[in-house]
């Protein structure tokens, strides 16, 4: 189903406005409070179990996942193929102008290429594919562009002409599918620690080492750790976008997506759990280590850590994707659509790297020479 937000007053297209957090009509200025548009919420609470597209979609997504992750040389089974074709064949038409909407299997919201109207594909946002939460954009396109240019100028190692930031190919507001995990981590550790004390008596230096047996058990709960569930997004780039502030975390409502691109998840919460466990494992380890203090050395001989998933909410988080053309190569950057934090590898200038390298090396060398002269004077 294609959902299109038309202004009840003037008939123009409405879109989500990041400044006010409301659905807004640019032509007449009408605004609607999204949280009160209960009627638009999909699926209706307590909705009937339906045999619908979304289930097919989910199966297709899972099939695609297995293919990519576990055995990409595996031939498509006819069943998979059928599902897939059926899915891709679904054509969506713009309700405004009737043109065919360009979508791929993951698209859940987009804008019409012809008339520019923001549309939401509601059938891909229902059932098990219904997001639970969303953080709406708080940075709009103009602000994103400005922040990006500022960031380019700050780069210490980036080439001069890159810093102009005049070749931004496009900036896309994207709702990236994430799972927000609530996890419980229990850890138990045993260590041998020492306290070392040295003192001098006469001509002897005494080293007194006291050994301790140290035991710690922790019970830790972590809330809403994000993990990106989209295949095409770079995991480490998405991790670096954190933190998101959850005071602006809203119950999902489709109008938030109006005017932006949104995608559905490729991996479900169970598939991503191992990645999450690995991350939380190190959190628990660090916590245990932080409870052991006052010792000179700590050496663990047992660490048992068990991570359990308590909950995972399908959540859409706002990301500005910046595509930048520099010397015939595309550089992709991602910006946290809520905080403005930017990640992505900028091009590096050999000249500027050399300059910094020489500067730091000569500086260090000068310091060493001065120290030598000071110490040398004392020694000879």
């Amino acid at each position, binding site marked *: 189903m294609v959902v299109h937000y038309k202004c009840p007053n003037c008939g123009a297209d409405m879109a989500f406005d990041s400044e006010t957090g409301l659905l807004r009509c640019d032509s007449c200025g009408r605004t609607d409070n999204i949280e009160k548009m209960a009627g638009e919420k999909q699926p209706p609470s307590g909705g009937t179990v339906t045999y619908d597209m979304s289930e097919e979609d989910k199966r297709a997504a899972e099939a695609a996942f297995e293919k990519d992750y576990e055995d990409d040389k595996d031939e498509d089974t006819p069943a998979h193929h059928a599902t897939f074709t059926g899915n891709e064949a679904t054509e969506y038409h713009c309700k405004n102008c009737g043109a065919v909407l360009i979508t791929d299997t993951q698209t859940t919201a987009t804008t019409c290429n012809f008339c520019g109207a923001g549309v939401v594909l509601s059938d891909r946002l229902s059932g098990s594919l219904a997001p639970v939460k969303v953080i709406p954009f708080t940075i709009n396109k103009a602000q994103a562009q400005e922040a990006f240019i500022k960031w380019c100028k700050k780069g210490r190692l980036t080439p001069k002409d890159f810093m102009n930031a005049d070749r931004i190919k496009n900036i896309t507001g994207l709702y990236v599918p994430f799972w927000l995990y609530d996890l419980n981590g229990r850890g138990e550790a045993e260590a041998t620690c020492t306290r070392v004390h040295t003192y001098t008596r006469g001509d002897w230096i005494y*080293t007194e080492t*006291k050994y301790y047996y140290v*035991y710690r058990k922790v*019970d830790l709960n972590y809330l809403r750790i994000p993990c990106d569930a989209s295949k095409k997004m770079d995991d480490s780039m998405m991790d670096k976008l954190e933190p998101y502030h959850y005071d602006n975390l809203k119950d999902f409502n489709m109008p938030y997506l109006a005017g932006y691109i949104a995608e559905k998840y490729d991996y479900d919460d169970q598939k991503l759990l191992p990645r999450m466990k690995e991350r939380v494992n190190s959190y628990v380890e*660090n916590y245990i280590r932080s409870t052991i203090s006052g010792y000179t050395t700590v050496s663990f001989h047992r660490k048992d850590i068990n991570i359990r998933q308590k909950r995972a909410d399908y959540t859409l988080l706002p990301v500005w994707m910046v595509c930048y053309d520099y010397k015939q190569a595309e550089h992709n950057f991602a910006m946290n659509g809520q905080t403005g*934090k930017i*990640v992505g590898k900028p091009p590096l200038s050999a000249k500027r790297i050399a300059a910094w390298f*020489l500067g730091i090396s000569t500086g*260090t060398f000068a310091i060493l020479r001065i120290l030598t002269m000071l110490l040398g004077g004392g020694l000879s």
Partner: protein
Amino acid sequence: MINLIKSKSLLLILFAFALINVVIINSASSNTSASETENNQRIYDKAGLLSTSEYEDLEQLCIEYGEDAGIDIYILTHNDSDSVYPEAYIENFEDTLPVGDRVYFLYDKYRGEIFIEGYGLAETYIHSKRIDLIFDQMMTDLRAKAFYDAFKTYISLSASYMKDDFEINEDHDYSYSSEYQSETEKSNYSNGSESYDYDSYYDEPRTPKEESILTNLWFQIIASLVIGAIVVGTMAYNSGGKMTVQGNNYIDPGHSGLIGRRDQYIRTRVTRVRKPTQNNNSGRGGFNAGGFRGGVSLGGRSHSSGGRKL
């Protein structure tokens, strides 16, 4: 960000100094391994005082008497103007060998001085007072350049003192410096020409001067380049943004915490090492509470000592 870079480079400089120390220690130990191969030689007659037959005879005596007495008896001679002063010369020689029970006689022909040091059991039995007695027996022969006879006396007396429990020195803590020194030296060396001026060497470095690696120009250049590379490398690595969240960002503080802890004392171990002696003006070596003279080598080995001018 700038602070971060600063603190990082500070760490790196500290790291570079640690590296320098390691290199110094390595180079110090590599200097010394050369002489370990000739382990049965007892006489190093670099001044060429002995004929071949005398040398072979004395080697034989050193080994025979030494085995009987349970120590290794060494004789060193040299005529080297660049060498360190006698006390340190023997110390440096001793430091090249594994820890053991040894007594050394050194004739520094260039300076015209003789010196004896005892290590291990020999430190206890051949203490400074007995060293003086050995010197007394050797002086006539040494002055007459009858080295063969003088060395024979040294070998047999050293071996016999090892079996004499009458007055031994168990205290190897030679920390009392000046008071004892002036007193004992006066009484022992009343005849001026023989008295050995320990003080004259206090200002001398133990080892010939060599440029420290710390001040080595090339080392500093390389260290600076390495530091520059590491700092710029981290800058480049972090240019794409970095992970800024930790477990604390997501922890639920009300429902997290320690549910068990124990810190239990097990045991205490105490070790001790000698304070490293510095090349400072307070002098090295000295006298213990019993008035016995001795010192500590750079390698931390304590020894009895005694010297005279010829």
